[in-house]
């Protein structure tokens, strides 16, 4: 089964997100890399690298979809990915989807036995999925523009 690796600035945020994902898809392996090695807010390439390796193992070689939060997370993730062997890196797909929605959506897809590219694609797809229902009342500033 495809595993998820969740990367971000806060250990607490990521731990809670891991619990949300586990509720939606208890059998999907989820590994988190939140915060720095010293427990402060931030991202850590060595921590991310370790999480990716654990996730790869937990997926029994099927592959890992990575979701991440803002700012330096992408840089730290890129540096971590370069430390991996080519064969491992090929089994990792980084999603550009939103962290929370993408993670839950991807986990449900993974639980259904979907392959790596498909799990990543549904997580990506959450970028374009409207969150407000169509009959949502008008708000100050107007309705959000449909993408």
């Amino acid at each position, binding site marked *: 089964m495809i595993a998820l690796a969740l990367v971000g600035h806060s250990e607490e945020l990521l731990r809670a997100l891991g619990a949300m994902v586990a509720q939606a898809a208890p059998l999907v392996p989820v590994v988190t890399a939140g915060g720095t*090695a010293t427990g*402060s*807010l*931030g*991202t850590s*390439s060595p921590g991310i690298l370790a999480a990716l390796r654990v996730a790869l193992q937990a997926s029994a070689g099927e592959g890992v979809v990575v979701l991440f939060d803002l*700012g330096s997370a992408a*840089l730290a993730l890129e*540096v971590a990915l370069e430390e991996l062997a080519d064969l491992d890196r090929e089994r990792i797909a980084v999603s550009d989807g939103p962290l929370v929605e993408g993670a839950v959506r991807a986990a449900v897809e993974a639980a259904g036995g979907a392959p790596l590219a498909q799990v990543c694609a549904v997580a990506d797809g959450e970028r374009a999925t409207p969150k407000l229902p169509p009959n949502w009342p008008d708000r100050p500033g107007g309705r959000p523009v449909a993408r």
Partner: protein
Amino acid sequence: MSDDLLVRWLTLAGARVAAARERLTDLDAAIGDGDHGINLDRGFRELVRRLEAGLPGGVVAGREVSAVVLEGAGRALIGTVGGASGALYGRGFQRAGAALLGPSADAAPLDGRSREERAVIAFGAAVDAIAALGRATTGEKTMLDALVPARAALEAAVAQGATLPVAARQAAEAAEVGAEATFPLIATKGRASYLGERSIGHLDPGAVSSAILLRALADAAAEG
């Protein structure tokens, strides 16, 4: 660049970063997430600790001790800074080290090059690596606004036959001018870009820390 100067530079840089910790953090609080000084200080403390412990593998045998020192310095920053600046500076130091090893492991293309030429090669590789990882260029209110002019100044000085202390001083001056020039810029990269026009009227903390690192290099070179 001699290994001895490299160690003196990094040690002095650590002290300067520690002294500037509050200033860098205040600059970052204005337009970022307010941790640049804290993060960089933590990273340089670890870097200096590892230098004093002899870096990975100890003070190694072989030609390119400086490459090993730079790679180890980068690794220390990547592992402990915990922000974009850790990945960027860390990658810069690592690629500077790699550049001193030349295009292949058994080639020795840099043998016989002066320390000035080696500094140009290493610093150029660092700036290229930072620009590539950050997908950034000058004028975006980032550390590149200090680093790119510093590189140009270093290259120009060395091309005119300047010694390393002189070239490094000119690089530091260019970096300081570049950092000051970030004041009116709109940030388009990193957390500061969230502020849009409100990022105008602040110095970029990364450009300021880059200038601090280069001033430390100039001062370390002047001593030697």
